[in-house]
Protein backbone atom coordinates (compact mmCIF):
# COMPACT_ATOMS: atom_id res chain seq x y z
CA UNK A 1 0.00 0.00 0.00
CA UNK A 2 2.88 2.37 0.81
CA UNK A 3 4.23 3.05 -2.67
CA UNK A 4 0.79 2.89 -4.24
CA UNK A 5 -0.39 5.69 -1.97
CA UNK A 6 2.52 7.84 -3.07
CA UNK A 7 1.87 7.32 -6.79
CA UNK A 8 0.83 10.41 -8.68
CA UNK A 9 -2.12 9.81 -10.97
CA UNK A 10 -0.66 11.81 -13.86
CA UNK A 11 2.15 9.26 -14.22
CA UNK A 12 -0.30 6.67 -15.44
CA UNK A 13 -3.87 7.15 -14.38
CA UNK A 14 -6.99 5.65 -15.82
CA UNK A 15 -10.18 7.29 -17.00
CA UNK A 16 -10.76 10.21 -19.37
CA UNK A 17 -8.27 13.10 -19.32
CA UNK A 18 -9.64 16.52 -18.39
CA UNK A 19 -8.00 19.79 -19.44
CA UNK A 20 -7.63 21.75 -16.22
CA UNK A 21 -7.54 25.24 -17.75
CA UNK A 22 -10.98 24.66 -19.29
CA UNK A 23 -12.50 24.46 -15.83
CA UNK A 24 -10.90 27.58 -14.34
CA UNK A 25 -12.40 30.93 -15.44
CA UNK A 26 -10.00 33.57 -16.78
CA UNK A 27 -10.93 35.99 -14.02
CA UNK A 28 -10.60 33.43 -11.21
CA UNK A 29 -8.47 34.86 -8.41
CA UNK A 30 -6.15 31.85 -8.12
CA UNK A 31 -5.58 31.74 -11.88
CA UNK A 32 -4.51 35.40 -11.95
CA UNK A 33 -2.52 34.93 -8.76
CA UNK A 34 -0.60 31.94 -10.11
CA UNK A 35 0.11 33.63 -13.45
CA UNK A 36 2.15 36.36 -11.73
CA UNK A 37 4.89 33.98 -10.56
CA UNK A 38 8.03 33.32 -12.62
CA UNK A 39 7.59 29.59 -11.98
CA UNK A 40 10.30 28.33 -14.33
CA UNK A 41 13.13 30.26 -12.66
CA UNK A 42 11.79 29.61 -9.16
CA UNK A 43 11.51 25.86 -9.73
CA UNK A 44 14.98 25.87 -11.31
CA UNK A 45 16.41 27.61 -8.22
CA UNK A 46 14.82 24.99 -5.95
CA UNK A 47 16.11 22.17 -8.15
CA UNK A 48 19.62 23.63 -8.06
CA UNK A 49 19.45 23.89 -4.28
CA UNK A 50 18.23 20.31 -3.89
CA UNK A 51 20.84 18.97 -6.29
CA UNK A 52 23.60 20.73 -4.31
CA UNK A 53 22.45 20.01 -0.77
CA UNK A 54 20.64 16.70 -1.21
CA UNK A 55 22.26 14.92 -4.15
CA UNK A 56 20.63 11.70 -5.30
CA UNK A 57 22.76 8.70 -4.47
CA UNK A 58 21.22 6.51 -7.14
CA UNK A 59 19.34 7.00 -10.37
CA UNK A 60 17.00 4.14 -9.61
CA UNK A 61 13.51 4.57 -8.22
CA UNK A 62 10.35 6.36 -9.12
CA UNK A 63 10.58 9.99 -10.26
CA UNK A 64 9.84 12.44 -7.48
CA UNK A 65 6.83 14.75 -7.35
CA UNK A 66 7.40 17.84 -9.47
CA UNK A 67 9.18 20.69 -7.68
CA UNK A 68 6.73 23.16 -9.16
CA UNK A 69 3.78 21.34 -7.58
CA UNK A 70 5.38 21.18 -4.14
CA UNK A 71 6.59 24.79 -4.22
CA UNK A 72 3.16 26.01 -5.30
CA UNK A 73 1.45 24.03 -2.57
CA UNK A 74 3.77 25.55 0.02
CA UNK A 75 2.99 29.10 -1.15
CA UNK A 76 -0.72 28.33 -1.58
CA UNK A 77 -0.79 27.17 2.01
CA UNK A 78 0.00 30.74 3.04
CA UNK A 79 -2.38 32.31 0.54
CA UNK A 80 -5.37 30.14 1.42
CA UNK A 81 -4.48 29.74 5.13
CA UNK A 82 -4.63 25.95 4.91
CA UNK A 83 -2.85 23.15 6.70
CA UNK A 84 -0.78 20.54 4.84
CA UNK A 85 -3.69 18.11 4.86
CA UNK A 86 -6.21 20.70 3.67
CA UNK A 87 -4.11 21.97 0.76
CA UNK A 88 -3.24 18.42 -0.38
CA UNK A 89 -6.91 17.54 -0.20
CA UNK A 90 -7.87 20.64 -2.23
CA UNK A 91 -5.30 19.69 -4.87
CA UNK A 92 -7.25 16.50 -5.45
CA UNK A 93 -10.61 18.20 -5.97
CA UNK A 94 -10.09 21.91 -6.75
CA UNK A 95 -9.31 22.71 -10.40
CA UNK A 96 -8.05 26.20 -9.52
CA UNK A 97 -5.44 24.70 -7.20
CA UNK A 98 -4.50 22.21 -9.93
CA UNK A 99 -4.09 25.09 -12.39
CA UNK A 100 -1.92 27.00 -9.91
CA UNK A 101 0.24 23.89 -9.50
CA UNK A 102 0.78 23.77 -13.26
CA UNK A 103 -1.18 20.58 -13.92
CA UNK A 104 -2.46 20.67 -17.47
CA UNK A 105 -4.43 17.42 -17.64
CA UNK A 106 -5.87 15.15 -14.99
CA UNK A 107 -7.41 11.73 -15.29
CA UNK A 108 -10.86 11.29 -13.87
CA UNK A 109 -10.12 8.49 -11.45
CA UNK A 110 -12.22 8.43 -8.29
CA UNK A 111 -10.19 5.61 -6.80
CA UNK A 112 -7.18 7.90 -6.51
CA UNK A 113 -7.43 9.49 -3.07
CA UNK A 114 -4.31 11.67 -3.14
CA UNK A 115 -2.19 13.53 -5.66
CA UNK A 116 0.39 14.57 -3.10
CA UNK A 117 0.52 13.30 0.45
CA UNK A 118 0.96 15.82 3.31
CA UNK A 119 4.04 13.85 4.40
CA UNK A 120 5.71 14.54 1.04
CA UNK A 121 5.03 18.27 1.43
CA UNK A 122 6.51 18.25 4.95
CA UNK A 123 9.57 16.41 3.65
CA UNK A 124 9.99 18.98 0.87
CA UNK A 125 9.72 21.84 3.36
CA UNK A 126 12.42 20.31 5.55
CA UNK A 127 14.82 20.69 2.62
CA UNK A 128 14.25 24.43 2.17
CA UNK A 129 16.51 26.92 3.91
CA UNK A 130 17.02 30.66 4.45
CA UNK A 131 19.30 31.19 1.44
CA UNK A 132 16.88 29.53 -0.93
CA UNK A 133 13.92 31.53 0.36
CA UNK A 134 15.87 34.76 -0.08
CA UNK A 135 16.70 33.71 -3.64
CA UNK A 136 13.05 32.96 -4.41
CA UNK A 137 12.00 36.37 -3.11
CA UNK A 138 14.74 37.99 -5.17
CA UNK A 139 13.60 36.16 -8.34
CA UNK A 140 10.02 37.35 -7.80
CA UNK A 141 11.15 40.95 -7.16
CA UNK A 142 13.44 40.97 -10.20
CA UNK A 143 10.68 39.64 -12.46
CA UNK A 144 8.23 42.28 -11.20
CA UNK A 145 10.74 45.09 -11.74
CA UNK A 146 11.69 43.79 -15.18
CA UNK A 147 8.05 43.87 -16.24
CA UNK A 148 7.81 47.46 -15.00
CA UNK A 149 5.12 46.64 -12.44
CA UNK A 150 7.04 47.88 -9.40
CA UNK A 151 9.84 50.35 -8.87
CA UNK A 152 12.55 50.25 -6.19
CA UNK A 153 12.99 54.04 -6.21
CA UNK A 154 11.01 54.93 -3.04
CA UNK A 155 10.96 52.33 -0.31
CA UNK A 156 9.77 51.94 3.24
CA UNK A 157 11.46 49.80 5.88
CA UNK A 158 9.99 48.54 9.13
CA UNK A 159 9.83 45.58 11.48
CA UNK A 160 6.92 43.70 13.00
CA UNK A 161 6.59 41.09 15.75
CA UNK A 162 5.88 37.50 14.79
CA UNK A 163 4.52 35.52 17.66
CA UNK A 164 5.49 31.91 18.20
CA UNK A 165 2.22 30.22 17.37
CA UNK A 166 2.89 26.75 18.71
CA UNK A 167 4.32 28.00 21.96
CA UNK A 168 3.87 25.51 24.74
CA UNK A 169 3.35 26.46 28.35
CA UNK A 170 6.82 25.54 29.52
CA UNK A 171 8.45 26.41 32.80
CA UNK A 172 10.53 29.11 31.09
CA UNK A 173 7.57 30.90 29.49
CA UNK A 174 5.45 30.66 32.63
CA UNK A 175 8.33 31.95 34.66
CA UNK A 176 8.71 34.94 32.38
CA UNK A 177 4.99 35.77 32.44
CA UNK A 178 4.85 35.40 36.22
CA UNK A 179 7.82 37.72 36.59
CA UNK A 180 6.06 40.31 34.42
CA UNK A 181 2.88 40.12 36.51
CA UNK A 182 4.56 40.27 39.93
Amino acid at each position, binding site marked *: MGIVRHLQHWLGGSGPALVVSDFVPDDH*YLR*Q*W*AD*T*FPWASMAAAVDRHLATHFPKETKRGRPSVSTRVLLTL*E*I*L*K*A*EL*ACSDEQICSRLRTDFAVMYACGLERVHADRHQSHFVLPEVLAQF*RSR*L*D*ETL*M*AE*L*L*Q*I*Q*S*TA*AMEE*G*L*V*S*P*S*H*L*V*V*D*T*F*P*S*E*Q*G*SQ*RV*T*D*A*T*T*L*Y*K*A*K*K*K*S
Partner: protein
Amino acid sequence: MVDQVALRLHHPSLQRDAQKVHQQLKKVMRTFGRQCRGQHRTLVQWVRQTERQLLEVGQSVGPLALCAALHLQEDSSLENHQQQRLQAHLRQAAQHYEQIEQQSRRLIHGHPLPHAKIVNPYDRTITPIVKGKSNAPVQFGKKPGIIAEMATGFILGLHLPPGNPDDASYVPPLIEAVDAAIKAIVHPGKPKLKIQSLAGDLAFRPASVRDPLHARGILTQGIPQTTDPLPRTVTPQQVRAVQRSMSFPHIPSAHQVQVATACGYSRPFVESLITQLACRGGTHLKYKGHRGAVIQVSTAILAHNAATLTRIQQNQLTQRAQRCRRWFRLKPSKPLENNNQKN
Protein backbone atom coordinates in the same frame (compact mmCIF):
# COMPACT_ATOMS: atom_id res chain seq x y z
CA MET B 1 15.74 12.41 22.78
CA VAL B 2 18.25 10.25 24.68
CA ASP B 3 15.71 7.43 25.11
CA GLN B 4 14.96 7.52 21.38
CA VAL B 5 18.67 7.19 20.57
CA ALA B 6 19.00 4.35 23.10
CA LEU B 7 16.07 2.60 21.44
CA ARG B 8 17.81 2.82 18.08
CA LEU B 9 21.07 1.55 19.54
CA HIS B 10 19.31 -1.42 21.22
CA HIS B 11 20.93 -0.50 24.54
CA PRO B 12 18.42 -1.59 27.25
CA SER B 13 20.13 -0.11 30.34
CA LEU B 14 20.63 3.33 28.74
CA GLN B 15 17.09 3.25 27.45
CA ARG B 16 15.78 2.38 30.91
CA ASP B 17 17.69 5.23 32.56
CA ALA B 18 16.59 7.75 29.93
CA GLN B 19 12.95 6.71 30.23
CA LYS B 20 13.17 7.01 34.01
CA VAL B 21 14.42 10.61 33.77
CA HIS B 22 11.78 11.39 31.17
CA GLN B 23 9.02 10.06 33.46
CA GLN B 24 10.34 12.07 36.41
CA LEU B 25 10.40 15.28 34.38
CA LYS B 26 6.85 14.67 33.23
CA LYS B 27 5.75 14.01 36.80
CA VAL B 28 7.22 17.30 38.04
CA MET B 29 5.51 19.27 35.28
CA ARG B 30 2.19 17.50 35.92
CA THR B 31 2.28 18.48 39.59
CA PHE B 32 3.09 22.05 38.65
CA GLY B 33 0.15 22.22 36.25
CA ARG B 34 -2.28 20.92 38.89
CA GLN B 35 -1.16 23.44 41.47
CA CYS B 36 -1.55 26.37 39.10
CA ARG B 37 -4.93 25.17 37.83
CA GLY B 38 -6.29 25.19 41.35
CA GLN B 39 -5.20 28.76 41.92
CA HIS B 40 -6.34 30.03 38.48
CA ARG B 41 -3.11 32.01 38.31
CA THR B 42 0.61 31.41 38.22
CA LEU B 43 2.53 31.98 41.41
CA VAL B 44 6.18 32.93 41.26
CA GLN B 45 6.98 30.74 44.26
CA TRP B 46 5.51 27.67 42.57
CA VAL B 47 7.32 28.43 39.36
CA ARG B 48 10.67 28.71 41.10
CA GLN B 49 10.09 25.62 43.21
CA THR B 50 9.16 23.62 40.12
CA GLU B 51 12.14 24.98 38.28
CA ARG B 52 14.51 23.76 41.02
CA GLN B 53 12.92 20.29 40.86
CA LEU B 54 13.23 20.22 37.08
CA LEU B 55 16.86 21.21 37.21
CA GLU B 56 17.61 18.57 39.86
CA VAL B 57 15.94 15.82 37.85
CA GLY B 58 17.46 17.09 34.61
CA GLN B 59 21.01 16.92 35.98
CA SER B 60 21.40 13.42 34.63
CA VAL B 61 20.45 14.47 31.08
CA GLY B 62 23.99 15.66 30.30
CA PRO B 63 25.80 12.43 31.34
CA LEU B 64 23.13 10.32 29.64
CA ALA B 65 23.51 12.30 26.42
CA LEU B 66 27.30 11.88 26.58
CA CYS B 67 26.95 8.14 27.18
CA ALA B 68 24.50 7.83 24.28
CA ALA B 69 26.89 9.79 22.04
CA LEU B 70 29.74 7.38 22.87
CA HIS B 71 27.60 4.36 22.12
CA LEU B 72 26.44 5.99 18.93
CA GLN B 73 30.02 6.43 17.75
CA GLU B 74 30.77 2.77 18.37
CA ASP B 75 27.64 1.57 16.63
CA SER B 76 28.18 0.55 13.02
CA SER B 77 24.64 -0.50 12.12
CA LEU B 78 23.50 3.08 11.50
CA GLU B 79 24.35 4.96 8.34
CA ASN B 80 26.67 7.94 8.41
CA HIS B 81 24.02 10.64 7.89
CA GLN B 82 21.77 9.05 10.53
CA GLN B 83 24.64 9.06 13.01
CA GLN B 84 25.40 12.72 12.31
CA ARG B 85 21.76 13.71 12.76
CA LEU B 86 21.45 11.87 16.08
CA GLN B 87 24.77 13.29 17.29
CA ALA B 88 23.53 16.80 16.52
CA HIS B 89 20.32 16.15 18.50
CA LEU B 90 22.27 14.82 21.48
CA ARG B 91 24.66 17.77 21.42
CA GLN B 92 21.70 20.13 21.37
CA ALA B 93 20.04 18.35 24.32
CA ALA B 94 23.21 18.60 26.44
CA GLN B 95 23.88 22.25 25.55
CA HIS B 96 20.33 23.35 26.32
CA TYR B 97 20.47 22.03 29.85
CA GLU B 98 23.65 23.96 30.64
CA GLN B 99 22.28 27.21 29.24
CA ILE B 100 18.92 26.94 30.99
CA GLU B 101 20.63 26.08 34.26
CA GLN B 102 22.95 29.08 33.98
CA GLN B 103 20.04 31.40 33.18
CA SER B 104 17.98 30.00 36.04
CA ARG B 105 20.77 30.48 38.59
CA ARG B 106 21.19 34.09 37.55
CA LEU B 107 17.47 34.71 37.82
CA ILE B 108 17.21 33.22 41.30
CA HIS B 109 20.09 35.32 42.56
CA GLY B 110 18.41 38.45 41.26
CA HIS B 111 20.99 39.36 38.62
CA PRO B 112 19.70 41.03 35.44
CA LEU B 113 19.36 38.70 32.48
CA PRO B 114 21.24 39.29 29.24
CA HIS B 115 19.31 40.54 26.22
CA ALA B 116 18.91 37.16 24.50
CA LYS B 117 17.24 35.14 27.21
CA ILE B 118 16.04 31.62 26.52
CA VAL B 119 12.26 31.29 26.53
CA ASN B 120 12.01 28.08 24.55
CA PRO B 121 14.68 25.40 24.85
CA TYR B 122 13.84 24.04 21.39
CA ASP B 123 14.46 27.36 19.66
CA ARG B 124 16.95 29.68 21.29
CA THR B 125 16.34 32.44 18.74
CA ILE B 126 12.89 33.21 20.19
CA THR B 127 12.89 36.29 22.42
CA PRO B 128 10.30 38.49 24.10
CA ILE B 129 9.20 41.21 21.69
CA VAL B 130 8.33 44.19 23.86
CA LYS B 131 7.89 46.51 20.88
CA GLY B 132 4.54 48.30 20.83
CA LYS B 133 3.29 46.54 23.93
CA SER B 134 2.96 49.20 26.60
CA ASN B 135 -0.30 47.80 27.96
CA ALA B 136 -0.60 44.25 26.67
CA PRO B 137 1.00 40.83 27.27
CA VAL B 138 4.46 40.57 25.76
CA GLN B 139 4.77 38.26 22.77
CA PHE B 140 7.44 35.62 22.48
CA GLY B 141 8.69 35.32 18.97
CA LYS B 142 10.81 36.92 16.30
CA LYS B 143 11.02 40.30 14.67
CA PRO B 144 11.17 40.15 10.86
CA GLY B 145 12.13 43.29 8.97
CA ILE B 146 10.72 44.08 5.54
CA ILE B 147 11.50 46.58 2.81
CA ALA B 148 8.60 47.44 0.53
CA GLU B 149 7.69 49.69 -2.36
CA MET B 150 5.78 52.77 -1.18
CA ALA B 151 3.11 52.73 -3.88
CA THR B 152 1.59 49.26 -3.77
CA GLY B 153 3.35 47.52 -0.87
CA PHE B 154 5.26 44.98 -2.96
CA ILE B 155 7.84 43.53 -0.55
CA LEU B 156 11.33 43.43 -2.05
CA GLY B 157 13.31 42.01 0.84
CA LEU B 158 13.09 40.20 4.16
CA HIS B 159 15.58 40.08 7.01
CA LEU B 160 14.90 37.81 9.97
CA PRO B 161 17.82 37.77 12.40
CA PRO B 162 17.98 35.50 15.43
CA GLY B 163 16.90 37.20 18.66
CA ASN B 164 15.64 40.73 18.96
CA PRO B 165 18.35 43.12 17.71
CA ASP B 166 18.14 46.86 17.23
CA ASP B 167 15.89 47.99 14.35
CA ALA B 168 18.69 50.05 12.85
CA SER B 169 20.70 46.88 12.14
CA TYR B 170 18.01 45.76 9.65
CA VAL B 171 18.74 48.47 7.08
CA PRO B 172 22.03 47.25 5.49
CA PRO B 173 20.87 43.64 4.77
CA LEU B 174 17.52 44.86 3.43
CA ILE B 175 19.21 47.37 1.13
CA GLU B 176 21.55 44.58 -0.04
CA ALA B 177 18.54 42.41 -0.87
CA VAL B 178 17.04 45.15 -3.06
CA ASP B 179 20.41 45.79 -4.71
CA ALA B 180 20.70 42.07 -5.52
CA ALA B 181 17.22 42.10 -7.09
CA ILE B 182 18.09 45.17 -9.20
CA LYS B 183 21.42 43.67 -10.24
CA ALA B 184 19.72 40.46 -11.43
CA ILE B 185 17.62 42.32 -14.01
CA VAL B 186 18.67 41.04 -17.43
CA HIS B 187 17.21 43.84 -19.59
CA PRO B 188 17.40 47.06 -17.57
CA GLY B 189 15.25 49.77 -19.09
CA LYS B 190 15.75 53.51 -19.08
CA PRO B 191 16.09 55.28 -16.71
CA LYS B 192 18.21 52.80 -14.78
CA LEU B 193 16.51 51.52 -11.64
CA LYS B 194 18.01 52.62 -8.32
CA ILE B 195 16.93 53.35 -4.78
CA GLN B 196 16.20 57.08 -4.41
CA SER B 197 14.68 57.31 -0.95
CA LEU B 198 14.11 55.21 2.11
CA ALA B 199 11.45 55.89 4.73
CA GLY B 200 11.44 54.53 8.24
CA ASP B 201 10.25 55.37 11.74
CA LEU B 202 12.16 56.80 14.70
CA ALA B 203 14.07 53.56 15.24
CA PHE B 204 16.00 54.22 12.02
CA ARG B 205 17.08 57.69 13.14
CA PRO B 206 20.74 57.08 14.14
CA ALA B 207 23.41 58.77 12.05
CA SER B 208 25.10 55.38 11.63
CA VAL B 209 22.09 54.34 9.53
CA ARG B 210 21.54 57.57 7.62
CA ASP B 211 25.12 58.54 6.75
CA PRO B 212 25.93 55.46 4.58
CA LEU B 213 22.61 55.95 2.77
CA HIS B 214 23.36 59.65 2.12
CA ALA B 215 26.79 58.68 0.83
CA ARG B 216 25.05 56.47 -1.73
CA GLY B 217 22.65 59.26 -2.69
CA ILE B 218 19.63 57.72 -0.95
CA LEU B 219 17.35 60.26 0.72
CA THR B 220 16.23 59.27 4.21
CA GLN B 221 12.79 60.80 4.15
CA GLY B 222 10.42 60.01 6.93
CA ILE B 223 13.15 59.44 9.48
CA PRO B 224 12.43 62.51 11.61
CA GLN B 225 14.85 64.08 14.04
CA THR B 226 12.06 65.20 16.35
CA THR B 227 8.55 64.08 17.20
CA ASP B 228 6.99 66.75 14.97
CA PRO B 229 4.57 65.43 12.33
CA LEU B 230 6.15 64.76 8.96
CA PRO B 231 5.42 67.30 6.22
CA ARG B 232 3.75 65.99 3.05
CA THR B 233 4.82 68.95 0.91
CA VAL B 234 8.16 70.70 1.06
CA THR B 235 8.99 74.36 0.74
CA PRO B 236 11.79 75.51 -1.62
CA GLN B 237 13.93 76.27 1.44
CA GLN B 238 13.53 72.71 2.70
CA VAL B 239 14.44 71.35 -0.74
CA ARG B 240 17.62 73.42 -0.77
CA ALA B 241 18.44 72.25 2.79
CA VAL B 242 18.11 68.62 1.70
CA GLN B 243 20.21 69.23 -1.41
CA ARG B 244 22.93 70.88 0.70
CA SER B 245 22.98 67.89 3.09
CA MET B 246 23.90 65.47 0.28
CA SER B 247 27.41 65.11 -1.12
CA PHE B 248 28.29 66.28 -4.67
CA PRO B 249 27.84 63.31 -7.02
CA HIS B 250 24.45 62.43 -5.54
CA ILE B 251 22.66 65.78 -5.18
CA PRO B 252 18.94 65.05 -5.77
CA SER B 253 16.75 67.20 -7.96
CA ALA B 254 13.91 69.25 -6.46
CA HIS B 255 11.38 66.84 -8.00
CA GLN B 256 13.09 63.86 -6.37
CA VAL B 257 12.95 65.56 -2.96
CA GLN B 258 9.29 66.46 -3.42
CA VAL B 259 8.33 62.91 -4.41
CA ALA B 260 10.38 61.39 -1.60
CA THR B 261 8.73 63.71 0.94
CA ALA B 262 5.27 62.90 -0.36
CA CYS B 263 6.07 59.18 -0.10
CA GLY B 264 7.42 59.57 3.44
CA TYR B 265 6.86 57.10 6.22
CA SER B 266 3.21 56.26 6.79
CA ARG B 267 2.18 54.13 9.75
CA PRO B 268 -1.25 53.19 8.31
CA PHE B 269 0.49 51.96 5.14
CA VAL B 270 2.91 49.81 7.14
CA GLU B 271 0.06 48.52 9.30
CA SER B 272 -1.84 47.48 6.18
CA LEU B 273 1.22 45.51 5.00
CA ILE B 274 1.52 43.79 8.38
CA THR B 275 -2.19 42.96 8.37
CA GLN B 276 -1.92 41.41 4.91
CA LEU B 277 1.02 39.31 6.08
CA ALA B 278 -0.91 38.37 9.23
CA CYS B 279 -3.78 37.10 7.04
CA ARG B 280 -1.25 34.81 5.34
CA GLY B 281 0.21 33.51 8.59
CA GLY B 282 3.32 35.70 8.59
CA THR B 283 2.85 36.91 12.15
CA HIS B 284 1.92 33.64 13.81
CA LEU B 285 4.84 31.25 13.49
CA LYS B 286 4.04 27.56 13.55
CA TYR B 287 7.08 26.03 11.90
CA LYS B 288 9.84 24.97 14.23
CA GLY B 289 13.08 26.86 14.73
CA HIS B 290 14.68 29.81 13.04
CA ARG B 291 14.75 28.13 9.63
CA GLY B 292 11.06 27.34 9.94
CA ALA B 293 10.28 30.95 10.81
CA VAL B 294 12.16 32.18 7.73
CA ILE B 295 10.29 29.70 5.51
CA GLN B 296 6.90 30.66 6.92
CA VAL B 297 7.39 34.43 6.68
CA SER B 298 8.97 34.11 3.21
CA THR B 299 6.08 32.06 1.83
CA ALA B 300 3.64 34.60 3.29
CA ILE B 301 5.57 37.38 1.52
CA LEU B 302 5.67 35.48 -1.79
CA ALA B 303 1.90 34.97 -1.62
CA HIS B 304 1.35 38.61 -0.64
CA ASN B 305 3.52 39.84 -3.52
CA ALA B 306 1.61 37.72 -6.02
CA ALA B 307 -1.67 39.15 -4.72
CA THR B 308 -0.21 42.67 -5.05
CA LEU B 309 0.87 42.02 -8.64
CA THR B 310 -2.63 40.73 -9.41
CA ARG B 311 -4.10 43.97 -8.08
CA ILE B 312 -1.63 46.01 -10.15
CA GLN B 313 -2.46 44.07 -13.31
CA GLN B 314 -6.18 44.50 -12.69
CA ASN B 315 -5.61 48.17 -11.79
CA GLN B 316 -7.39 47.66 -8.49
CA LEU B 317 -5.29 50.18 -6.60
CA THR B 318 -6.06 52.89 -4.09
CA GLN B 319 -5.96 56.50 -5.20
CA ARG B 320 -2.80 57.00 -3.17
CA ALA B 321 -1.10 54.04 -4.88
CA GLN B 322 -2.15 55.30 -8.32
CA ARG B 323 -0.76 58.76 -7.51
CA CYS B 324 2.55 57.28 -6.32
CA ARG B 325 2.82 55.13 -9.43
CA ARG B 326 2.38 58.20 -11.61
CA TRP B 327 5.23 59.87 -9.69
CA PHE B 328 7.37 56.75 -10.16
CA ARG B 329 6.62 56.83 -13.93
CA LEU B 330 4.92 53.43 -13.74
CA LYS B 331 2.08 53.16 -16.21
CA PRO B 332 -1.06 51.18 -15.46
CA SER B 333 -1.29 47.91 -17.37
CA LYS B 334 -3.69 47.88 -20.32
CA PRO B 335 -4.46 51.64 -20.20
CA LEU B 336 -6.60 51.55 -23.35
CA GLU B 337 -8.72 48.73 -22.00
CA ASN B 338 -9.25 50.62 -18.75
CA ASN B 339 -10.27 53.76 -20.63
CA ASN B 340 -12.77 51.80 -22.70
CA GLN B 341 -14.35 50.41 -19.58
CA LYS B 342 -14.72 53.89 -18.12
CA ASN B 343 -16.14 55.32 -21.34
